[in-house]
């Protein structure tokens, strides 16, 4: 691996900015969640804009973006949420690669769309590989720079020469993060659907829920009508897959996300399909979410299709 090149200095860290790649699979049996980008589809777009491998580490910036100074000339790319990025006063749009001059400052302002923006750098961020991934597992304290989200004065290095990047076409509009609005998340019902009354399942599938402020990289708590259990909310503790929709005793859904506890003892009414999991990471508190049941093969098909669509724009680098 090449020596990292100091590229960006953190002037202000923002609300929660962390280094993320596609995650750290393989360790859930030891209680280690996969972490990784909350919106991997946007993270991959940012990487492809620079000709990076899909799994290169990028910066995930949440609601309130950081203030970053470029230490030298070089390219970077933005994707995902629109947090009013500006480079030396010039407004920037998600889904594009840009060129910065040494000393220029990248700032963010009010949230305009989505919740998490991604910043890719040439070759990816050079933080230490931990169990095969550079993702920051914030709630366990490892990965990323020193096992945490960014702090003032962190110096971010990239793995390739920042000036050595070929230009690519912008991300096509239909692949970009859709504009803010109510989100329908497709789910596969189960595994504990029999622990809910038919009224409970109907409430889940026909109601609109709101994202609460108790929502982070571990999980999202939703507010809405009470989902009725038939036989209490407790099950013998078992694995909690990414996207599991857990319903504890108070009857409101909790979406289990990238840094969730890997096992849990509450009933799970459904699991969000892989193709829709990234939408959750882009829904800030107050957003409306509803659920639509699909079959497993539809879930697999949807996941295949969204990556084929991205490949049609620009295939992955091997």
């Amino acid at each position: 691996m090449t020596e990292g090149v100091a590229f960006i200095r953190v002037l202000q860290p923002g609300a929660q900015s962390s280094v993320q790649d596609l995650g750290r699979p393989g360790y859930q049996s030891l209680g280690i969640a996969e972490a990784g980008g909350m919106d991997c589809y946007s993270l991959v777009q940012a990487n492809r804009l620079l000709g990076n491998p899909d799994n290169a580490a990028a910066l995930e910036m949440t609601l309130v973006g950081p203030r970053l100074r470029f230490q030298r000339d070089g390219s970077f790319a933005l994707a995902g949420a629109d947090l009013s990025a500006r480079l030396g006063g010039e407004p920037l749009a998600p889904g594009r690669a840009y060129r910065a001059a040494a000393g220029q400052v990248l700032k963010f302002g009010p949230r305009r769309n989505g919740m998490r923006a991604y910043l890719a750098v040439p070759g990816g961020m050079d933080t230490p590989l931990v169990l095969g991934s550079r993702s920051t597992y914030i709630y366990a304290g490892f990965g990323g720079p020193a096992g945490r989200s960014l702090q003032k004065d962190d110096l971010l290095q990239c793995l390739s020469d920042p000036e050595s990047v070929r230009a690519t076409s912008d991300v096509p509009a239909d692949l970009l993060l859709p504009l803010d609005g109510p989100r329908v998340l497709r789910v596969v019902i189960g595994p504990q659907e029999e622990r809910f009354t038919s009224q409970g399942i109907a409430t889940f599938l026909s109601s609109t829920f709101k994202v609460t402020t108790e929502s982070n990289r571990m999980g999202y708590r939703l507010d809405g009508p009470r989902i009725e259990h038939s036989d209490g909310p407790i099950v013998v503790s078992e694995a909690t897959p990414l996207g599991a929709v857990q319903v504890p005793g108070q009857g409101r859904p909790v979406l289990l996300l990238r840094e969730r506890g890997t096992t849990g003892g509450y009933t799970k009414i459904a699991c969000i399909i892989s193709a829709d999991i990234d939408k959750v990471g882009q829904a800030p508190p107050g957003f409306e979410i509803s659920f639509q049941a699909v079959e497993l093969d539809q879930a697999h098909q949807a996941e295949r299709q969204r990556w084929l669509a991205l490949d049609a724009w620009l295939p992955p680098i091997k």
Partner: protein
Amino acid sequence: MRITFGDERSLEVNRPVRALSGMLESQSIPGLREMVPTYASLTVLYDPDAVAFQELKSRLEEMAETAMSRKDEENAGRLLRIPVCYQGPYAPDMEYICDYTGLSPREVISLHTQEAYFVFQLGFTPGCPFIGPLQEQLHVPLMQSPRTHTPKGAVAISVGQTVIYPRATPGGMRIVGSTPVQLFQLEHSDLTLFKPGDRVRFAAVDLAEYRDIEARAVKLYDGVEILGHD
């Protein structure tokens, strides 16, 4: 995909979970990405582009049958001796546990250190073991509202199980004691002190011993005795 063998926390239900997980580890099944063994089920993460759901399902069902018919002996795992201080500030819920169970602190400690328990699963946070089954006399309910801060090393009990917190996190279980040993270390090739299938015996230590071990327990296994098979 999840293969369930029952709905209780018992050795009988857990045995085929471990057997199946062992069988899958020793074979290479295309498309199989990750396995998470828990009390009563094995969750399998797979790549639907490498193996079709139905194909994997029938294969796992067949293997689950074999796993259920296996009569593996119980003591296959290691036996680890874990020092626990059940006194003073290290046992903030001892009074509650005694009130609830009608036992004296001495009886609680005696029961908790009496038999070798079993590590059913790891989960919640990195390296956090779920240990049991706990004797009926020690069954206490979860807290109504969980603590926002359960200290690192807290040994906590609730209905039927003991959990040890590898780092400070929120938690709703009743803290019976604390261990000074490390449960998770990224730099160690084992990563976690416990593996599903290990056996554990808790050993009571006083405050002075606790502090002594705490001062030298910097790495995984420091202060832990591996007794082998019991």
